[in-house]
């Protein structure tokens, strides 16, 4: 499965066009073109290139970038990964919390106007175009109100000393308060943008499953025992509605990555998405290939982890 995925990526990228002309520009002397082709291994037959590529991957060798000093791709990926991780973690947390809250809110008022509004919200988030939402937020909070910065991870010279690469964590570890505040300020708009985009599906899912669970006998039993409504809803019902939500959290991972690509491009957030976008336009094949492979492996791993977590949450599941 993974191998086929890798092959598809390889084929797509190889047929994609000529990196040499992209690097050297249209009017390079033929000798120079030949030399670069040889250096990049593009003169070999396609199947040799393919074998080299697969064997390299088995050794965790993602190849070297085709431009700018030819750094190892994996190194560059890891350099940009923390930025994406930081944004994703905050945005994801925001979306799950917000989604569950609105979902429960809606389920408690089933078929009342508030419920319809929340359902509409679920559909709207599905239709929202991240760059547009980002633009509106940037206009309101960045340009007109001037409260928040509209791009980058921190102001120049304000970035904390790099330990984990997560600016908020780093600045807490180094007790760098100004830099912590600065990074949080930069995080707010991207987090909300990506978070709202992802939250709709959780709203909908929570709503459906809460409505289902609330009709079960054990909820009636809990109410009969005179438990406060809040305990019934959040402790008894939500806990039982949580498994499908967890499944969706695993499935949302791909959407999170796509959302991150757009959000990062929108907010010039120097993560993997922005990096991918940048390298695509430069036709840096090995890097683009490596990044996409990295993302694919990540998706597979995350779904594996989610499967394992199930067993802990629901003891009825056994593999």
């Amino acid at each position, binding site marked *: *499965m*993974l191998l*086929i*995925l890798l092959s*598809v*990526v390889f084929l*797509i*990228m190889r*047929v*994609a*066009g000529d990196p040499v002309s992209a690097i050297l520009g249209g009017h390079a002397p033929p000798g120079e073109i030949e030399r670069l082709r040889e250096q990049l291994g593009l003169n070999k037959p396609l199947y040799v290139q393919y074998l080299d590529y697969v064997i390299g991957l088995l050794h965790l060798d993602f190849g070297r970038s085709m431009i700018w000093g030819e750094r190892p791709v994996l190194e560059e990926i890891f350099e940009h990964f923390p930025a994406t991780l930081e944004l994703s973690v905050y945005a994801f947390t925001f979306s799950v919390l917000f989604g569950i809250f609105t979902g429960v809110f809606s389920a408690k008022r089933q*078929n009342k106007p508030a419920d*319809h509004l929340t*359902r*509409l919200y679920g*559909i*709207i988030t*599905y*239709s*929202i*175009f*991240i*760059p*547009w939402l980002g*633009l*509106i937020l*940037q*206009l309101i909070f*960045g*340009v*007109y109100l001037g409260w928040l910065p*509209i791009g980058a991870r921190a102001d120049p010279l304000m970035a904390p000393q790099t330990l984990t690469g997560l600016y908020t964590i780093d600045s807490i570890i180094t007790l760098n308060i100004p830099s912590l505040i600065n990074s949080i300020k930069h995080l707010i708009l991207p987090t909300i943008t990506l978070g709202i985009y992802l939250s709709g599906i959780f709203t909908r899912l929570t709503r*459906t499953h809460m*409505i*289902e669970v609330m009709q079960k006998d054990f909820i009636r039993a809990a109410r009969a025992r005179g438990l406060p409504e809040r305990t019934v809803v959040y402790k008894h019902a939500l806990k039982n509605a949580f498994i499908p939500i967890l499944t969706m959290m695993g499935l949302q991972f*791909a*959407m999170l*990555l*796509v959302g991150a*690509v*757009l959000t990062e*491009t*929108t907010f010039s957030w120097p993560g993997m998405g922005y990096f*991918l*976008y940048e390298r*695509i*336009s430069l*036709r840096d094949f090995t890097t*683009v290939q490596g990044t*996409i492979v990295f*993302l*694919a492996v990540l*998706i*597979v791993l995350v779904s594996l982890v989610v499967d394992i977590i199930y067993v802990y949450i629901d003891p009825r599941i056994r593999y």
Partner: protein
Amino acid sequence: MAKLSFPRFVASTLRKFSPRNGVEYTFAFTGFIIIAVFIFMALFASIIAPYDPNKIGVGELYESPNFKFLMGTDGFGRDILSRIFYGSRTVLLITLLSMALSSLCGVLLGLLSGYVGGKFDTVLSLVMDSLYALPGLILAIALAVMLGQGIIPVTVSLTVVYIPIYFRMIRGEVLSLKENLFIEAARAIGAKDKTIIFKYIFPNVIPSLPIVLSLNAADAVLTLAALSFLGLGLPADIPDWGVDLRMGYGELTSKIWWTGTFPGLMIVLLTLGFSLFGEGLTEILNPRLARR
């Protein structure tokens, strides 16, 4: 049947979509209206657009919205409203075309793969599953890089992205349908494979299509916009919302809000139209779900 006057017909249709019948009717109806408005804009762009969308300098540079230019002008002095009308033409053309192509390919391949089975099915399913595992936009980006700019390359990339969705759905349905008695009966009376596929199986898988089509169209509008936004979409001379939105970013800090806001709003509205329509339809056609 009593003769129905036109106003009464309209009234009864409208009543059918009143929230009292369930909010899903309102959703579907609103979605339908939105889509219809955009189709109208696309069809009659040349009549209703006040200016030539590509003509530079019909107004001053960056005129804010006023009576002459309802949505203002961009950095080349082009009328944004006219660009939006013509843009709807581009977006709808690409979306609908790629939806038609991908459903056609996906359905045909799914029918064949599910019906024939064996190695053919195994290989095809593997390829489709791995395409499906990649997020749509990432795949679209890779394809768009490969095919270059222009309407046809973008349409092809979108088509490829959505084929696996139809393939997987149809194949699943065929696999379960195949076990039914009426297929066995058809085979017993000596029907050819082709007849069985198209006369017996195909009609049974059609009902699930419109919902998926509509929801996919919503997704396709977003993917197309994202491609253009990332600079992988269409050449500059074709009016397109994603490209215009991208341009709006450069002017953001100068408080020029209209160049990006309106094209972006169109992207969201059209997507919303398709999603509302698809969502409403889902619940109307699956009343079991809706009544919950």
